[in-house]
């Protein structure tokens, strides 16, 4: 088994491989940083672990501000500092504060804790939260009277939703608590805004200025509608892990996409160097004269390429992940681990699938030059083929609006499809990609396995028989 390690070392410790890993690691870190710089630095509070929600009540000679300060998990923050109108206040153990300010005081008020600082203006209802909150909203509306002409009253509320693995919390600040019923509805992201009232769920009544309700929160992106009777519903987007992750993740997805595109070419080159060229020059014969059988030689060198693909993908995805995690560590929320995992698995699967395919070729074609030519054709075919073919199918059959469906359907027929599916699942989870009905996880897994295993086996069987 030592020789497997050597074959791996000789494929991995190769100038081109190392160079590309270094380049992409650098790009990965750079993009993580760039993502951080564009998303985080200009609005640092988006990524803080500090949130505030509350109401301001105008009394006849003063403004009373009642607020609640909490972290990204929804837990109260004790002893946060509030500076308003030149005085300093502190939150109590339950995260509450109460300020007495002059009438019509609308200056920014600072909330700081643990070197993080956010501000809010004491409007009738206010809310300032990080982008890790799953949903937020401020509603200022009129409650229209019914036909029996009850007097119209204004109703203003602000809310945030926190998702703790399905056990969600709705925090609602309302300026006019009057035992109203509170209703919530989650709707499929791809469905329309028209939400039937019947699907709303009652979560409780308004009992004070700041209210907490338990919710069952979904784990995918959905539309969330909140309704405080008898206002109409207010609808916003619900991100299970907050929209912060989405913006952070999308930058990395782009880098990994570029990596897979280029690294597929590296895998092609490795198949050439590890198997095609040595077959052409006879070097495989020289090795085969050692105490080794053909199958072992075939597998050894194959594993050399596979390990290189795995290690490279691993380095890149987890390096990007680690960089970003460190940069946003102050938010108190870990970037979800399934983000690098899905990228790593799908990228490796795509690279290994493509490697299996081109590694099979030398069993059939002795000439290294021909093998390279065919591999490059396959590379181009599978890199741009699915999109082009799907486009042609969509146009000729007149199903242009189903083009996304058709493109994803065509990815099953590409060894590199796994990567697109990986990005699809990530976008589905963190981004704005609507669910595509032609993507089925079992099929995705099956197609990846088939693309890896079948060429490998065909190549092996053939290699056992040929005159090398």
């Amino acid at each position, binding site marked *: 088994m*030592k*020789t497997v390690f*050597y074959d791996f070392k*000789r494929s991995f410790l190769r100038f081109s491989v190392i160079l590309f890993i270094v380049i992409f690691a650098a790009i990965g870190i750079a993009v993580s940083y760039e993502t951080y710089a564009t998303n985080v630095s200009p609005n640092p509070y988006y990524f803080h672990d500090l949130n505030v929600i509350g109401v301001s009540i105008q009394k006849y000679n003063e403004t009373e501000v009642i607020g609640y300060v909490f972290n990204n998990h929804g837990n109260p923050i004790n002893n946060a500092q509030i500076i308003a109108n030149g005085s300093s206040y502190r939150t109590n153990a339950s995260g509450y504060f109460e300020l007495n300010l002059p009438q019509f005081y609308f200056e920014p008020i600072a909330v700081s804790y643990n070197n993080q600082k956010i501000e809010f203006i004491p409007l009738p209802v206010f809310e300032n939260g990080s982008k890790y909150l799953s949903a937020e909203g401020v509603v200022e509306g009129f409650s229209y009277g019914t036909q029996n002409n009850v007097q119209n009253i204004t109703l203003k509320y602000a809310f945030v939703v926190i998702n703790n693995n399905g056990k969600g919390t709705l925090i609602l600040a309302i300026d006019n608590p009057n035992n109203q019923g509170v209703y919530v509805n989650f709707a499929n992201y791809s469905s329309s805004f028209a939400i039937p009232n019947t699907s709303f769920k009652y979560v409780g009544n308004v009992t004070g200025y700041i209210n907490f309700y338990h919710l069952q929160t979904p784990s995918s992106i959905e539309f969330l509608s909140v309704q405080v009777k008898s206002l109409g519903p207010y609808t916003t987007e619900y991100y299970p892990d907050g929209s912060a992750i989405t913006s952070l993740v999308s930058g990395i997805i782009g880098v990994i996409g570029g990596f897979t595109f280029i690294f597929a070419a590296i895998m092609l080159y490795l198949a050439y*160097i590890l198997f095609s*060229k*040595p077959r052409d*020059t*006879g*070097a495989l*014969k*020289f*090795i*085969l*004269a*050692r*105490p*080794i*059988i053909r199958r072992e030689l075939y597998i050894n060198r194959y594993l050399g390429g596979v390990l290189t693909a795995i290690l490279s993908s691993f380095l890149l995805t987890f390096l990007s992940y680690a960089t970003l995690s460190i940069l946003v560590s102050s938010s108190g929320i870990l970037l979800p681990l399934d983000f690098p995992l899905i990228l790593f698995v799908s990228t490796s699967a795509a690279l290994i699938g493509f490697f299996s395919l081109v590694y099979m070729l030398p069993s059939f074609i002795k000439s290294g030059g021909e093998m390279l030519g065919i591999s490059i054709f396959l590379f181009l075919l599978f890199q741009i083929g699915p999109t082009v073919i799907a486009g042609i199918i969509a146009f000729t059959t007149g199903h242009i609006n189903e083009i996304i469906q058709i493109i994803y359907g065509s990815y099953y027929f590409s060894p590199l499809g796994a990567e697109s599916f990986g990005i699809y699942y990530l976008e589905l989870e963190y981004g704005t990609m609507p669910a595509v009905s032609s993507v089925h996880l079992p099929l995705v897994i099956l197609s990846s396995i088939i693309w890896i295993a079948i060429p490998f086996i065909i190549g092996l069987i053939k290699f056992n028989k040929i*005159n*090398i």
Partner: protein
Amino acid sequence: MQPNSIAMIEVSNISKKFGNLIALQDVSFTVNNGELVGYVGLNGAGKTTTIEIIAGVSYPNSGEVIIDGHSIIKEKKEASKNVSWVPELPIFEQDATVLDYFIYLAGYYGIGKEEAKKKAEELFSLVGLQGREKDKLKNYSQGMKKRFALAVSLISDPNNFIFDEVLNGLDPQGIMFFRDLAVKLKKENKAILFSSHILTEVENIADKVIFIHKGKIIRQMSIEEIKNYIRTNIFRVVLGRIDGNVIKIAEKYGNPKLQGNIIFIENFNGDIPGLSSDLLNYNIIEMAKVEGNLEEVFFKLIGEQK
């Protein structure tokens, strides 16, 4: 064959086709312990094909090769441990450094890195490559590559060696080295098969020569047999003057043939003084026994084959 010598390389009835081309047809021979066997044939005769089958890198269409009792086809690993092959061409992965590649190949014999380094030091100085371990193989000259292949063949100290056109590309020093090595291996009771398309190359060191022509073994001869075979009984006289009587005079001494001013007398009776006095008037320029040319043996054998 000596009674108690064991056949170390035993080739039985191997045939090999490349498409329609029959490269080998029913090839059988053995190379015994302590025996140095030359494998001689023209280019394209099938030497390399045979040797690659023995080395286990090519399959025969039929037949069997047994090395130290193990079939190279069915027990490839065991058999391969016992035989080293120096290929005709430098078929290595040229972009590796020499030492790295050596260590890599040693790994297949279960030899660890440290031990392989020690072996490399010893063998590289033996084959005259010391100080060049860090070079890339592609920067080696043809002869250096041969020397490298020789060093590699000695990694596992096997009992059997097959050398394919090993003297090709070697300088005189390299040729000397190889001869010394071959003799040394022979003394260590190894079985050695080495191919060449030049019989003279083999003559000085081989115990036995196997002739292959168009994929068939046409003859196996010991060196003594070959030497006898080329010992001719032709006498050659170069004359200054020729006339119609010359042949008649020469007929007393054998079967003469006239070519220009040269008479070749086959089955010469050995009477040089008689012949020279009879031909005195013809102004003898030169006379001598014709030495058989080693290469002619080969063509003669081929001729017999037709």
